[in-house]
């Protein structure tokens, strides 16, 4: 088992760029890209930690795909309603 040698900090640091993009990105599309980075960090952990069964890795990947599908459906509805994906403009329009 390669587990003891896993650099946990590596996976945690992979989360950070995604979280930063999610927090500071003004476009909803960029936020979703950030979200994909966060999910990828978790998936990468499952791929590199070798004893994990392929079933688990596939399940995590499928969950990520489902989330991406639902988020793109919602993104399309937001775009249709506000004609923009810029969060500031959407907030302005909401006011």
């Amino acid at each position: 088992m390669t587990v003891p040698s896993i650099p946990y900090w590596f996976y945690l640091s992979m989360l950070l760029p995604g979280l930063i993009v999610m927090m500071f990105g003004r476009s909803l599309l960029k936020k979703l890209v950030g979200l994909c980075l966060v999910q990828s960090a978790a998936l990468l952990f499952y791929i590199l930690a070798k004893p994990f069964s392929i079933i688990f890795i596939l399940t995590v990947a499928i969950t990520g795909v489902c989330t991406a599908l639902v988020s793109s459906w919602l993104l399309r509805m937001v775009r249709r309603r506000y004609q923009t994906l810029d969060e500031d403009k959407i907030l302005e329009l909401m006011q």
Partner: protein
Amino acid sequence: MTGVLVLSPFIGALAVLAIRGWRPKRCEPVAFGAVLVSLAASAQELRTILTTGAIRHSFGKWAPGLTIEWVLDPLSATLACCISVMMLILFHQARPSILAELGQKRSVFYAAALFLLGGLLGMLLTGDLFAMFVFMEIAALSGYALVGLGEDRAPSAALRYLLLGTVGAALYLLGIGFLYAETGTLNMAEVGRRAVSALGSPAVMAALGMILVGLSLKLGLFPLHGWLADAFAYAPSASSALLASVMMNVQIYALFRILFWVFGPIAVKHQIPALQILTVLGAVSIVAGSVMALCQTDSKRLFAYSSIAQLGLAALGLGIGNRWAVMGTLLCVLNHALMKGCLFLSAGILALRRQPRSVLEWDQLRMTSPWTVAAMTAAALSLIGIPPFGGFVAKGYIFLGAVRGGESLPALLVLASTLLTAGYFFRIAQVVFFSKANDVVALRPEKSETWLQILPLGVLVAGSVLLGVYGMPLAEKVLAPLLEETL
């Protein structure tokens, strides 16, 4: 029977999606049928468990430690029965709202609600950390869809919910990955046994931290509550009722199982400061949720912030961590499910009857919708913690737990929660009962409330009264023996 219990909502959801194009009118009976099958199966399982004791099933021919296990004990089976009953009541009660608010999209609503039910039942019954993640995500994806089905600002609220909910799920996933890396298993009971020797390791600490933050995000505890108010306020009324009354409470149960079954009460009380963190999160949520509820005029937003405060109370009970407080938390979860369902469904009835959403314009409500007002008043009294409603027993047990545990600040917070809840509901009562009716603002509906609208609200209120009357025997005779092994 366990397979039927969990699979029937999924099969029902797929059937609804399959027939929605050519038999849209059949979607509703199919959805009702699937929930009824689920309810019958959970009732049968509960009956069996009460005579034979907890049941464990394993399936999947994977390596030892990776086989997925179902654990049915009286607590999980009772909660499975409760959420099936709640789903049935909400489906019935919300029919007019669903028709009015969702129109052609109602088949998607039924499919998403059934996926939600399947996900939640799976979360309740699984004994495996990874399977819990999968069911949690099924429930969460259904929740995003249920919110996104609404009009106006609903899709952007759903997107925000999705962003934060998925971060929570990713943290939970990484957390259980770390636990697996340390213990070599994902079975809850087995992780519990093996984690004892690895408790001091940074990986286990990080795992617990990530799981705690991930589930707190999904629960909407302050300051991780950013998504909750908008999602509940802009979702269709039926969706808000489903999410507030069923989904959030199962998340609390998941948190309880992970903290007390996986890590164990000694570890989370004395070795890792998990319960202290949960107490702080709960306390801040009670105060912040209540203060924000006090500032709201939109009824659904007010109920949403009230949910943050009530879930904070449940988290506080878990944080205190002794037998009485945890029993209070479980009763609080049941009472919150009944009463928040009642409040959001009442909001749906008012919307259907073209009544204003702003609580400041509810001065004619006692004349135009007297039964709905009566149900909302009962729900408010129960959430405040007035006898004979279930909220009184729940708060009483959490208070008792705090006092017996020698924790004076949490005890004071339980009392403060009562006063704050009374404060924001009194604001509504002042407008509804004590202001002079203003004919210009309110619109009088043409018809009075129908018994079909009122009856399910009555059932929910009666449920809370029953919880108030039989809450103590339920706690002492059913919950206490169950928790004795754990706490």
